[in-house]
């Protein structure tokens, strides 16, 4: 140890430090990519909110994942694998390897979600991460997966940024986004409420709220609506009365609630309590719009959702073959219909598995190539395409309305219109999505 000098120590210390700071994880000299499966099985990482305010949605996502794994391994009735247009999957796992899974708890907190994703990649050898119920979390985990060299199949994330300015080559989103909600809703709102309307927006103060508000404002203003005000509300707000009260005297005749989950339930409840829906302003009935609906959440708002318009990615009452197969298989296993969160996560898992089969590898670059520009059908949303430029799925969007006379506790929303894909499509460099760079796929290792 004759060369053990102060300078040498600092140099090697710096090297080790840089090495530790590198996001590359378990590195193996032979594998060409992170966590290449070596045995007879392959591990997927399901990162869903198991605690925190979205735990119920997380639980539904997990149910869908378990169902997807069962179907991939040849169990159950096969669900949407039977209606899926691609027939690469054989029910013998993925590429002949049995599918196993590990789960993590995102807690709907970016740091917790990153930590659990990191642990699943490093400790459990997960070759793909999927799930989540918040755009903040999705963007954080997507960034981590890009660095680590694994594929991220986003769960429930609706912010334009996920496949906009924060898009990543290793990340893919099946769920729709704020822009699509605006493009689908605006014509329906115009048809029902006319084109001379004054809208007041209450918006959750984070990435999803901002981009959805921007999208809805642009889409409705294009139809002639005027935007009176947009008020950002802290995510932690529980009593929205002080934000709702000023709406009464603002001259607005429409209230747009860019809120999700508990925020949506509470702001909608406050708005109804304040009698907004009974008001007549500018000789027009006052209306409330909830651009992003979730059936699980709509239940929490009870009677208040009746007659209120919004949009959703998928609904169990759809009658296409794919939806019917999925509802049957999920309903028989669990005793109630699946939510849109369950649908999108199930589809994402099948799509990932199918891409592996078609490309013949788990290598993220091969999988990404197989997913890019992939066109498919039979998964409940009609003809769908994973656009190569931004890894966003393009498909029809559902405009829904709170049902006036529900026949069961699941029968909360009714589908008003299936907006065709062409109407919600946008250019990859659209102003609301510009500024990001997909970068190159990262196989890690």
């Amino acid at each position, binding site marked *: 140890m004759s060369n053990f000098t102060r300078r040498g120590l600092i140099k090697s210390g710096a090297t080790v430090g840089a090495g530790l700071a590198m996001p590359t994880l378990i590195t193996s000299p032979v594998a060409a990519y992170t966590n290449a499966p070596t045995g007879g099985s392959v591990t997927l990482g399901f990162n869903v909110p198991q605690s925190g305010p979205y735990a119920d949605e997380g639980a539904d996502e997990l149910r869908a994942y378990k169902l997807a794994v069962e179907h991939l391994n040849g169990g159950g009735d096969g669900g949407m694998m039977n209606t899926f247009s691609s027939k690469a999957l054989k029910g013998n796992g993925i590429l002949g390897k049995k599918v196993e899974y590990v789960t993590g708890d995102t807690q709907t907190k970016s740091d917790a979600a990153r930590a659990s994703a990191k642990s699943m990649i490093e400790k459990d050898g997960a070759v793909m991460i999927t799930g989540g119920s918040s755009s903040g979390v999705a963007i954080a985990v997507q960034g981590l997966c890009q660095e680590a060299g694994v594929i991220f199949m986003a769960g429930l994330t609706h912010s334009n940024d996920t496949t906009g300015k924060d898009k990543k080559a290793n990340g893919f989103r099946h769920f729709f986004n704020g822009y699509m909600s605006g493009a689908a809703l605006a014509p329906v709102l115009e048809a029902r409420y006319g084109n001379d309307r004054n809208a007041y927006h209450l918006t959750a103060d984070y990435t999803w709220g901002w981009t959805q508000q921007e999208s809805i404002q642009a889409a409705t203003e294009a139809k002639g609506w005027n935007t009176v005000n947009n008020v950002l509300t802290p995510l932690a707000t529980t009593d929205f009365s002080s934000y709702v009260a000023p709406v009464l005297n603002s001259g607005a005749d429409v209230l747009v609630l860019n809120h999700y989950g508990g925020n949506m339930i509470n702001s909608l409840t406050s708005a109804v309590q304040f009698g907004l829906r009974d008001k007549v302003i500018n000789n027009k009935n006052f209306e409330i719009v909830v651009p992003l609906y979730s059936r699980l959440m709509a239940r929490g708002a009870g009677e208040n959702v009746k007659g209120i318009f919004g949009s959703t990615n998928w609904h169990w009452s759809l009658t296409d073959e794919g939806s019917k197969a999925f509802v*049957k298989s999920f309903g028989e296993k669990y005793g109630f219909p699946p939510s849109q969160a369950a649908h999108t996560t199930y589809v994402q898992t099948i799509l990932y598995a199918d891409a592996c089969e078609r490309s013949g590898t788990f290598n993220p670059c091969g999988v990404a190539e197989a997913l890019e520009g992939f066109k498919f059908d039979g998964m409940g949303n009609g003809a769908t395409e994973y656009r190569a430029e931004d890894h966003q799925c393009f498909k029809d969007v559902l405009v829904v309305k709170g049902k006036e006379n529900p026949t*069961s506790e699941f029968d909360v929303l009714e589908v008003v219109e299936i907006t065709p894909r062409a109407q919600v499509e946008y250019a990859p460099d659209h102003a609301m999505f510009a500024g990001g760079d997909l970068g190159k796929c990262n196989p890690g290792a």
Partner: protein
Amino acid sequence: MIYKGFDGTMDAILLQILNGLDKGSAYALIALGLTLIFGTLGVVNFAHGALFMVGAFCAVTLQKVLTLSKISIDPTKTDFLGNPLKVKTPYVVEWFGEGTGNAIIDWNVPLAILVAIPIMLLVGYIMERGLIKHFYKRPHADQILVTFGLAIVIQELVKANYGANPIPTPAPDQFVGSYNVGALIGLDASYPYWRLIYFFFSISIIGAVFAFLRFTTFGMVVRAGMVDRETVGLLGINIDRRFTIMFGIAAAVAGLAGVMYTPINSPNYHMGMDFLVLSFVVVVVGGMGSLPGAVLAGFLLGILESFASMNEVKGFFEAIYLPSIDQIIIYLVAIIVLLTRPRGLMGKAGVMED
């Protein structure tokens, strides 16, 4: 004759005052209970928010019990899987007939008050005798840790049994809608019935607690014990027993605040935590150990919070580089109060200063 005073500005101000009083009602009720416990037992009870939540879930549970249903099969209809539809008829409707049965379900929240009082007294009693008793002689930090831990346990128990999503617990149909309070003074400002009820309900609870402490022998003994526990004990009075009862009463106050809050916001498992931090700020601003201080600070901070979320106010503070004033106003005021009056608005010397 209703006219638009100052372009509706007066209406807006009146509405925010009402909002503030309403928010303040919940803060004041929780802070009152916290102060009662701190003043009598000297314990900083971080599980107090959980008691508020447990109260709310008394209403949820009663709703579940009232809507327990007999399941019969209706072969003419089918469910989402195409199987014969299972029709649920609540037992209460079966027993009391359509009208009465549905009315009972509809009046669930007011009925829950009757259920919640004994339950909360019992919960408070068990909590004090079972756990908190063992921490009287321990430092405040230990008390905070154990009560905070207890709050998390209660919260997770509720989540495991009721799920994480909010559960709608509506007010009786008669109280749905709003009342034009502004019309009384020539303005136009409608305010929801149930929120008005909540305000008057909390005023009467606060009044009842104060009257109880002031005008009953029991209350007199408790007040004496709050000032000098040892001497009261030396007089041969079992002060510990009375303090245990006070803990039960404080729990009941928080529980009732929770029951009545359910129609305002659908309750979920972490509603207690949402209120807890704010309530502590309220207690500190009001002055540790001062009951009137807790009530005053509750209403004051409620009103400030409401005004801070007005667009005009937000805009003004944004212009002077203080964005999102609505999120920080309470803490900002707390800092200012503590800098100028370190004992809080109505705090007395010698409390938590040893």
